[in-house]
């Protein structure tokens, strides 16, 4: 039942956005012309497509994020049951976090974290 309401709310988001835009289409003026529909670039005619190459640095941060976010998925169940598993769980998670910190330190030393 919980997740049925999640579905209902996805539908609601659709209703909000598409219903609102439909109402706006009925109420608002709609007179497109070539100049109005051109891409905005401070009044200049844009040179080439907007789909340009961007920094590969974003890719490295995405990779780092992936590592740490998957790690968080492992830590959630650990956090819930830590009281039951006690010191053994603490040591194991400590080692796990330590490995990750080494990973972060390696990335740091390699200069991945520098934004140039």
């Amino acid at each position: 039942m919980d997740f049925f309401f999640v579905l209902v709310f996805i539908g609601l988001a659709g209703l909000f956005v598409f219903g609102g835009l439909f109402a706006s289409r009925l109420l608002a003026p709609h007179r497109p012309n070539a100049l109005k529909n051109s891409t905005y670039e401070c009044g200049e005619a844009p040179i080439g497509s907007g789909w340009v190459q961007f920094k590969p640095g974003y890719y490295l941060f995405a990779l780092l994020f992936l590592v740490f976010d998957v790690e968080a998925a492992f830590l959630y169940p650990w956090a819930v049951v830590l009281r039951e598993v006690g010191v053994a769980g603490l040591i194991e998670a400590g080692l796990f976090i330590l490995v990750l910190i080494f990973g972060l330190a390696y990335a740091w030393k390699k200069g991945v974290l520098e934004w140039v």
Partner: protein
Amino acid sequence: MGSGWETTTLAERAAEAMPGSLLAGAGYVLLAVVGASLFVAVLGMALIYAERKVAAHFQCRLGPMRVGPHGIFQTVADTIKLLFKEDIVPAQSDRVLHLAAPFFSMMATLLALVALPMSPIVQVADMNIGVLYITAVTGFGVLGVLLAGWSSNNKWSLLGAMRAGAQIISYEVSATMSLLVVVLFSGSMQLSRIVESQADGWWIWRAPVVGVVAFVIFLIASLAEISRTPFDLPEGESELTAGFHTEYSGLRFAMFFLAEFVNMFVVSAMATTLFLGGWMPFHIGGVESFNAVMDLLPPGAWFALKSAAVVFLIMWFRWTFPRLRVDQLMKLEWKVLLPIGFVNLFAAATAVVFGWYFFPF
């Protein structure tokens, strides 16, 4: 863990009513839909009004004053104006993705509202994985931003979206580290049980020191995730025009704007639920007369007051801190917040295992 509060959710009531009469179940679904729509619309307008008034008073101005008493209908007027504005879609853009982007942003915001416990009886659904659920669905927001930037076929939009994406996913890691601290202490991911575990004191101080550190990290990381000042570089107007929503106009732009403001509430509500006791009144363990006075205010009002306080704090930041540079932003996350978060998490785990916290169960 019994704290004397009866909690029910809309989903539970609907499940109860469903086998008997399908009509009652449908009624609850309708209640959720109508309630959430009204809530989002009113909250969005109220927050935009509050933002303008707070901004004005910080600068010794009056802010909107003309439409209605003290200008309270100004945002209503603005919404109606946006409804009547032409919806311009650039000819070069990817039309389908351009339309899908505001939907994803709105969806992320609305889905987060499903699990928030606003009072013992006002909560749509109470998943046993509440914390993880909220982290997961708010992640859809970054999809909306990236789609908006890519589909516009505009260099400003693309660069703004890439920056926003890098910023949001980076700070997500730190936010998770601080959420884990609260999960550790309360021993549950269910939001209603996290609130109930704070009956004798809120985790921000009940967890010794680590609670405060986690709260501060969560607040900073959340500000970055919702792109509020000082982390509003994705829409840094002096360098990127308007960032990912440069090519959005009329109601499509309004959807991003509304989602952004309701996100501010979601973040405040999460901070309230996890660190400030949620709808739980302020209690001091054992001092019954004081607790009785505090109980005079209903739980819903406590939740509203605490969230409003955090929202005000977020608005205050905007007039206190200058915007960060993009390299400073990445440095703050990966070289400062994340190491502190790791150490804090381990300290919290140690405190939980050895029972070093105030007012133990």
